[in-house]
């Protein structure tokens, strides 16, 4: 019986904000605890926009930002990214593991100068019939071993 009472009171609370927006109480909490205000002295976090260097851009151009913003960086901590970071409930995806292994590969090649071990390893396996596509001819010379 106690349980059902509790459930009923929870339902009552639920009813007060059936709409998508915050109830006045929730708004008060958000405003007090989480909302970033000018007096906080921190910048509004924003995500970088999608952009294609090689295509005509159709994405919405970033709105002029009021005040200062901090664009969240996906590359600032790259040296931390050559091993899987801890997970909570969601496992790393294949795509994520691909990223990690690419970061690891780049870390290993970072100090190579000139000759590239990846290239040297693959060169003997190259068959020109796999790559000999029209329009590619002017670049043929580069595949020939020196």
């Amino acid at each position: 019986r106690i349980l059902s009472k509790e459930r009923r009171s929870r339902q009552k609370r639920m009813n007060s904000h059936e709409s998508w927006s915050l109830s006045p109480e929730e708004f008060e909490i958000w405003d007090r605890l989480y909302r970033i205000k000018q007096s906080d002295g921190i910048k509004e976090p924003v995500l970088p926009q999608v952009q294609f260097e090689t295509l005509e851009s159709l994405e919405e151009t970033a709105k002029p930002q009021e005040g200062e913003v901090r664009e969240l960086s996906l590359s600032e901590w790259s040296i931390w990214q050559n091993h899987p970071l801890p997970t909570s409930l969601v496992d790393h995806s294949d795509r994520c593991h691909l990223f990690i292994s690419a970061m690891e590969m780049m870390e290993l090649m970072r100090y190579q100068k000139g000759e590239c071990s990846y290239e040297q390893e693959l060169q003997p396996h190259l068959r020109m019939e796999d790559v000999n596509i029209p329009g590619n001819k002017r670049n043929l010379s580069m595949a020939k071993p020196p």
Partner: protein
Amino acid sequence: LPRSPQRLKAAVHYTVGCLCREVEEDKDVQFSKQSIAAIAEITFRQCGTAGLPGECFLVLCRHAKRTTVTTEDVKLLARRSNSLLKYITQKSEELASSNTEKKKKK
């Protein structure tokens, strides 16, 4: 003919090298051999050994109760960017119209 991963990787690496040379000419920049190798490896893995688009295609196909991958599945891979989606859609239309022309000629 089954092809070894090494042979496929070599072909991707070569082609990536050619594309990077074109970008070098266009943009007046230089790629180190190591950066070309990294792009090649990422491209190779993106293409399916890590089960990326390959697996995506299977999921998309099954989702639409098909067993053959169509251009619609390819377009869905580009859905996150309007620019990319427009580009891929244009290419797919060009391809479709040139295919029908070829059929007419026969």
